[in-house]
Every structure is written in C-alpha cells, then in structure tokens.
C-alpha cells in the first residue's frame, strides 16, 4: 500500500511545485494547463469508455454544457463561479440522463453513432439559439473569485490540477469498487454480465453520469480561463475525438494511460502549431527558407497538427491498439 502511494505522491508534488520552479511564464503555463485539461478529460472519458467499454463519441456535449452554463450565468450575474460550475454539472447530468436513456439500449455501432447524434443536436441547438450567443459565442469581460488574480494563469493551473487529482482519485476508487468490477464485467461480455444479475442500464448510466459530471467541471474551468467560448471551441466533434485519442494513445482502461497520452499529444500538437519544427529545419540550414519546401513548411505546417493526429490514430490502432501503457503490461493479459 505504501509502495503504491509513493509514485502518485511524487507526481503530485512535482505537479504542485512546477509553477514555482518555472516562475511567471504564461506560455509554458498555458501548455501545462492544456496538458492537465486533456489528461482530465481523457481520464473522465476513460471511466465510461475504458472501464465500462462504452465508447462515447460525443463527450464534447458535456464539456460544452459545463462551459456554456457557466458563461451564461456569469455573464448575467455576479454569481460565485463555483455555483455556476455546479449548475453546469446539473445541466451536463441532465443531458447524460437523456443520452443514456436512448443510447444504452443499443450496442456496438449503434452506441457510437447515437452518442455523436446527441452531441451534434446539442451543438446545433446552441448554435441556433439566441441566449447562447449563437455563432458569435460568449465573451466574459470580468470574473471575480475570492480575490484571486485571475489574469495570472497560475490559479487555473491549480484548478486543473485539482480536477485531474479528483478525476484520477475517483477512477482509482471506482475501479476497485463493486461498481468498477461490474463495469469491467460489462466491458468483457455484456450478456454474461446480465446473466449474472448485473443491471446493465443502471451501471452504464452511473458510469456515464460520473464521466459527464467531471467533463463538465473541466468545461467550466476552461470557459472561465479563456473567457471566450463558441460552439467551434467547446462543442465540436473534433474535441470528442481528441479526448478519445488521448486516452487511446496512453492506454484505455488504465489509471495512468490518459495522463501519459496527454503528456505526449499536447506538446506534440503545440510543436506543430507553433511551427517550431519548420523554423528549426530552416535555421539549421536543412531546408533553405526561400525554397518551395521551406515556404510550404512555413506557411502550412502550423495547420498540419490535425493531419498528424490522424496519422497517429491510424498507426496506433494498427500497431499499438492497447496504447503506450499496453506495451509495459505482461503479455499474458
């Protein structure tokens, strides 16, 4: 028990100390916040997708529910952001209940398809309504939280860290609980699980509710952090896919996999987006800047990160379907 707790405690200590070590560096802190955010989102998704085996392709709906509810409440009143966050959880929970009622009667292909349809309906409704800001989105000019300086990124770093610790803690609790074993039984063989008296719909819904609530909390944090949201940023299918991808690359159905996935993918995306790679090739003289290749890299490499995501997904499914952590597992399992 003691031995098991050492590594998480060390990781947590590193997590807490990092902002003190790097000082006020908004750029690096921003990347770290994104790492923590994707890790939390992928971990929350993992409770449903990894442990219960129910691959949701629509988790952006819960992220967006948290983000939009929080922003709408904060833009019309001076409510405590924590209350707005709780309201977001309630909205996400309601969407999850409706989704669960429809999709958990279905299996295989149908579940994935239905989860996309629900998320797309949420996106289009938000896009077409008045009070959600429509295509313009919502901008929040000022927000107060117990006198914290919210122009600094550090409060959000710690906020995301708390969300991640909470999510990993809940995952650790769930997987060793009765519910956790039920979920894993459902993942391995639904019919066998049902024949042993496990209430499939009840436990799948429970996993979805936990997963959706945590996702919504991250959505609220993100909204207050960026202070601007629109459907493209928080409700897009692309976000749902990035969440799954992060979990898959790290290792689905493992406690630490999603964190590993985020630590790998987010910096990679950032390197591509900021075009560090293209500039390095040019400055080291490997590609002359004025050549057609150099021009092409300079202009387009920044847009190529989704392409690289696609390539990684294909390679990962073909050669590494159990993720990076799957490599280190005993081969018998």
């Amino acid at each position, binding site marked *: 028990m003691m031995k098991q707790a050492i590594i998480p405690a060390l990781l947590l200590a590193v997590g807490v100390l990092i902002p003190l070590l790097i000082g006020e560096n908004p750029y690096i802190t921003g990347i770290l916040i994104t790492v923590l955010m994707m890790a939390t989102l992928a971990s929350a998704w993992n409770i449903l*997708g990894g442990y219960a085996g129910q691959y949701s392709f629509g988790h952006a709906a819960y992220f967006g529910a948290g983000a939009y509810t929080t922003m709408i409440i904060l833009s019309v009143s001076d409510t405590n952001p924590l209350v707005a966050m709780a309201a977001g959880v309630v909205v996400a929970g309601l969407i999850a209940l409706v989704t669960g009622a429809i999709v958990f009667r279905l299996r295989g292909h149908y579940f994935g398809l239905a989860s996309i349809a629900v998320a797309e309906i949420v996106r*289009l409704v938000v896009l077409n309504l008045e009070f959600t800001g429509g295509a313009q989105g919502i901008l929040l000019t000022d927000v107060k939280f117990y006198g914290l300086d919210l122009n600094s990124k550090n409060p959000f770093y710690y906020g995301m860290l708390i969300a991640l610790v909470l999510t990993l803690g809940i995952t650790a609790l769930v997987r060793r609980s009765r519910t956790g074993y039920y979920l894993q039984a459902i993942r391995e063989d639904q019919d066998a699980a049902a024949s042993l008296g496990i209430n499939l719909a009840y436990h799948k819904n429970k996993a979805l509710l936990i997963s959706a609530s945590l996702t919504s909390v991250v959505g609220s944090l993100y909204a207050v952090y960026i202070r601007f949201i629109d459907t493209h940023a928080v409700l897009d299918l692309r976000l749902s896919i990035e969440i799954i991808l992060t979990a898959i690359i790290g290792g689905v159905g493992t406690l630490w996999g999603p964190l590993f996935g985020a630590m790998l993918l987010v910096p990679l995306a950032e390197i591509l987006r900021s075009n560090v790679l293209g500039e390095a090739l040019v400055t080291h003289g490997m590609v002359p800047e004025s050549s057609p290749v150099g021009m092409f890299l300079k202009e387009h490499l920044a847009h190529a990160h989704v*392409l690289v*995501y*696609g390539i990684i997904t294909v390679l990962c499914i073909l050669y590494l379907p159990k993720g990076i952590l799957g490599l280190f597992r005993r081969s018998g399992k």
Partner: protein
Amino acid sequence: MLFLQSLISGLLTGGVYALAGIGMSLVFGVMNVSNFAHGDLMMLGMYMAYFVFTLLHIDPYISLVLVMPAAFVFGYGLEKMFINRVIHHPHQNQILLTIGLGLIMSNTALLAFTSDPRILTTSYSSSSFNILRDVSVSVPLLLSFMITCVITATLYLFLGKSRTGMALRATSQNREAAQLMGINVSRMSAIAFGIGTALAATAGALIAPTYYIHPLAGHSFLLKSFTICVLGGLGSVVGATVGGLIIGVIEAMSSTYISTDWKDVVVFVLFLAVLLFRPQGLFGKKGGQ
C-alpha cells in the same frame, strides 16, 4: 405549391444522398464496419469532379466515367492496406481507424487545396424549368437524379444477377458460411469497399455543381449517410435508397416550414427516434441491434 416545390427538390437531392447511403450500407453489410471516412471520400469525389472540370474541361456529369473507376481503385487499395487489418477487431477500433483515415484525407485536402471554398459553375448550374405555374425544377439536380437512378438500377442488377454480386450478398448474409462455400471473403470485402468508395465519390461529384466544395464538407455528409443507413436498416441497400429519399424530403420540408438552421437538428432527432423505436430500421431484420 410550396409543398410540391419542397417535395420535388427534396426527392431530387435525396436521390444523391441515397447513393452515398447505399455505399455506406454495402460496406456495413459485407464487412460489418462503420465507415467514418465515408464523408471524406465524398469530399474527394467533389474535388475530383472539380479538377476534371477546371483542368480537363470535362463536364462534371461526364467526368463520372473517370471518377468512378478511380475511386473504386482507391477504395480497393484502402481496404487492402488498412481496413482489412481491423476487420476482426472491436467496433471502436474500426471506427477510430476510419476516423483517422478521414482526418488524413480532409487535412491533406486542406493543405493541398486550402480552406477557400470552390464553386463549380457549369453553363446550366443555375438553370431551371417550370413544370407547373410556380413549381420549378433545377436542371443540375434533375440530371443528378437521373444519373443516380441509372447507377442504382445497375447496382441492383449487379448484386442480383452477377456471380460477384451474389457472392457479395452471400458474404453479407453469413461471412463464415460464404467462406465455406468457397467465396474469397477478403476479396469481397475489398470489392465492397471499392464500390462503397465509388458510390460516395459519385455522390460527391453529382452534388459538386450545386454545392460549395470544401475540404471539410464531408463532415455533414457523414452524419447524413449514417442517418440514411440507420433509417433503412444498416446493411440494407433497398432501405438506404428509400432512406435517402426520405431524408432529402424531410430536409427540404424542414427548410421550408421551420428554417434552414434547424434542418440538421430535425434529421438527427429523426435518427435518434429511429434508434429508439425501430433500431432495426424500416427494412432491416429484427435482432440486428
């Protein structure tokens, strides 16, 4: 009159949707794979028609003679290289693999063709004629619909009468039994995916003269194709044909009577309603879910 107008334009567009739906349904039936790259294959068809038109000055409808075989070969190769390796994997891996392939296609298109939408303007792009006093029929839509009918009829004949067609249907009904009867099922999968790709690209080429051509255009067609398949029953070719027409009409009706902004919502709500009340689809066999 408004009603008749929406009905006619809905049916004409629905025919093209049906073509994309049939392609997806065939792949699903034979391979039991949900192809999430289907919309992007359609997008490739749009660009193929566009470039054949602008570079070779060949009419988009005649360009099908080039687009269809090219797309078939592309799909056949795609199946042999990628899809075929996950055919016995869990559904989620197949979905993710095809999503990955779709992302590669759409983002390569984004790099190669930029995000500026392109418009394919033919001499008859905006021409139409009146059949009744206020009911007009768009010429490009009517042409697309007629070509769709010919292709669908040919496909029915092919599936019903030819040896390969029968082998495809046998594989779709029971893969193992088909294999025991000496059918090369992995070749059938590649052929099915090739035909599916060809149909998607054809639908893309047919819709190109009346639509914005954009690297991310596939996204909305993907979800539409799924709705069509689920409505008709996953794997049913007849179902997909009817499903496509229904979706076309519903879309046109909701644009007319509700608003263009909400037409996709109506389609998705219908999709969920079908899953909820008749998951086997209108023409699917019971127990398929």
